[in-house]
């Protein structure tokens, strides 16, 4: 809407190429209408295979018990909770992009929000698996809900952070799903209205809920998105805050710190953006969407990565400083012996984490590297590994040697079924993501259209010419006239 909104010509266009509204529809919707490529099938089958392995691992765990995992005394939380926190963290970037950047009126979010939100939902689905199956007797999982029962009724403990987590994760999943799906309605309608086959028309017709594009509906839609964004913003901050409370409210040295909530949230956004980069760099290439997910988008996300990575770095250093400054012998042991001592059994993981999360993102201070797709892709993997190790370090190095040396546990390494469960969630995640990339509009078509005339390259060029002509006219009329 060049009439109602002005965007500076200094800003790089968000949509490259010579586009009009129809071209936008064509570019984003046509992959849905084509047969999937061979590469898609290969990727999809690998994901399903991983998922099957995960299902088998869970089957073993349910049948024979948690003993199938190599958890021991004192490491009662190992890979499972590490993976849980890691997946939840990954989910955070989607909500940050869709909600917080909407409130900040960041135009570039329109290119990436749909895929990022999908990633959030799939990541939270994966995360939820871990605490559920870790219960052991999973058929009693509904005990975590406050429902009237014949035992009193005996209620759940509302003062426990683990219960807060139940509410936080389930609310987060529900709200993200609603936000995502309500945004999808107009785009499903677009697919429906250009469908050539009867089956597709019916399927997308059902999915679109009968969306017409009426002005009144759009007005309500915008109000809904804005309020959902306003609700999701504190929600996303609360979710990882509450996850961090699982640790911070305990008395375990290494967990019992007040810095955890902001530190976890920053880490979550950090790892989430890394995952968004990993996925979108592949998606834009495979689906030919480089015009919509531009180098500018990648750069913007890299800026978030260097910011949040540095916040995480400060948090690591603050923890170390406070451990020293507090002079609590157990804290000092947790931070300087169990973690900081590279010769201790898990010392290597601490330094790996430090390198991946704090040192490596500093590359992105260089504009050239920020705008390099291969470097970004490589870095996104590094950051994901680093953030997995952060959770591993926090969980395992804090509990493997506790207050009583006689209770110090042996070295913990996961069993094949623990690894299988983790790989299985990768399978679940990528199976969902492949289906999403094939059957859903991976970019919010309607939102792209709404910024096309302010941020599209061809419109910007035109606008630039008009502005230049105006400036020249002004110069001739005003400045020269004055002389």
């Amino acid at each position, binding site marked *: 809407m060049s009439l109602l909104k002005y965007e500076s010509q200094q800003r790089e266009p968000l949509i490259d190429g010579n586009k009009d509204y129809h071209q936008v529809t064509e570019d984003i919707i046509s992959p849905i209408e084509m047969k999937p490529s061979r590469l898609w099938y290969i990727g999809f089958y690998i994901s399903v295979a991983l998922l099957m392995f995960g299902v088998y691992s869970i089957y073993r765990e349910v049948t024979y018990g948690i003993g199938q995992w190599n958890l021991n005394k004192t490491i009662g939380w190992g890979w499972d909770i590490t993976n849980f926190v890691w997946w939840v963290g990954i989910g955070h970037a989607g909500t940050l992009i869709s909600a917080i950047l909407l409130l900040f009126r960041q135009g570039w979010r329109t290119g990436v929000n749909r895929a990022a939100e999908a990633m959030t939902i799939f990541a939270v689905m994966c995360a939820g698996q871990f605490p559920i199956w870790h219960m052991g007797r999973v058929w009693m999982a509904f005990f975590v809900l406050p429902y009237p029962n014949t035992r009193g009724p005996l209620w759940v403990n509302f003062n426990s952070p683990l219960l*807060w987590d139940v509410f936080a994760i389930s609310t987060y999943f529900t709200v993200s799903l609603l936000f995502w799906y309500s945004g999808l309605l107009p785009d499903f309608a677009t697919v429906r209205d250009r469908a050539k086959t009867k089956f597709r028309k019916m399927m997308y017709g059902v999915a679109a*809920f009968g969306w017409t594009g009426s002005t009144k509906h759009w007005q309500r839609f915008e109000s809904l998105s804005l309020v959902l964004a306003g609700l999701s913003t504190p929600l996303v901050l*609360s979710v990882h805050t509450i996850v961090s409370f699982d640790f911070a409210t305990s008395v375990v040295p290494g967990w019992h710190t007040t810095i955890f909530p902001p530190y976890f949230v920053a880490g979550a956004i950090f790892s989430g953006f890394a995952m968004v980069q990993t996925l979108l760099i592949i998606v834009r290439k495979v689906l030919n969407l480089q015009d919509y997910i531009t180098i500018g988008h990648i750069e913007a996300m890299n800026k978030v990565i260097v910011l949040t990575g540095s916040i995480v770095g400060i948090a690591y250093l603050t923890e170390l400083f406070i451990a020293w400054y507090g002079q609590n012998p157990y804290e000092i042991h947790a931070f300087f012996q169990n973690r900081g001592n590279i010769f201790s059994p898990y010392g290597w993981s601490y330094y790996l984490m430090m390198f991946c999360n704090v040192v490596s993102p500093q590359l992105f201070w260089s504009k050239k590297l920020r705008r390099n797709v291969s470097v970004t892709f490589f870095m996104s993997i590094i950051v994901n590994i680093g953030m997995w190790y952060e959770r591993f370090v926090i969980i395992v190095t804090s509990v493997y040697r506790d207050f009583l040396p006689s209770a110090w546990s042996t070295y913990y390494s996961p069993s094949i079924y623990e690894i299988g469960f983790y790989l299985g969630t990768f399978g679940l995640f990528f199976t969902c993501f492949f289906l999403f990339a094939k059957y859903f509009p991976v970019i919010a078509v309607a939102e792209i259209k709404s910024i096309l005339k302010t941020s599209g390259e061809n419109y910007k060029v035109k606008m630039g010419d008009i502005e230049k002509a105006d400036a020249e006219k002004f110069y001739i009329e005003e400045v020269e006239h004055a002389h």
Partner: protein
Amino acid sequence: MSGIKKFVVGSFDDEAVLFPAVKNVRKAGYKIHDVYTPFPVHGLDHALGLRETSLHTAGFIYAITGTTTALTFISWVFTKDWPLNIGGKPHFSLPAWIPITFELTVLFSAVGMVLTFCYLCQLSPFIKKHHFSARATDDHFVMAIECTDKTDDAEVESFLQKAGAKDINIQVAETGWWIGRYDKEQKLYRHELGY
């Protein structure tokens, strides 16, 4: 409210042409049934004389319902129904209940708002609606003008032509229970200020 109605439908391919057209059509006294657009066109609701939505107010009411539900329920459980002694802490320990209270506030508000949104816009799977133009979700801004017995169709058509519409046709649609809410929502142009 329901019944067979006739509409003159004009499609515009540029929102910059659409705005003055909306104004002129309304000024001429025709009744715009609705304008269907592929994306939210800001200011079009005002141009059509639609009142502001109060969906956010509903959201607020759902939110405080969530807050009260959580607080009353947890207080009842922990102070009346089954007071548990947890580490000698007070039974009424409000700070520990903030997280769940907050989550339920958000949950109630979000779920309630989405359901209200679907109800108000009559959105649901398997619903059948009349679509005036398939391009309304692609690249056209589709204006549907409602005809009464007194309306001269040819006159409306030529009016739309002059206003810059590209594709003009006459359609008959059965207005179901989802159509016709606009009768209440839309203000007449002459009732607006400055006319």
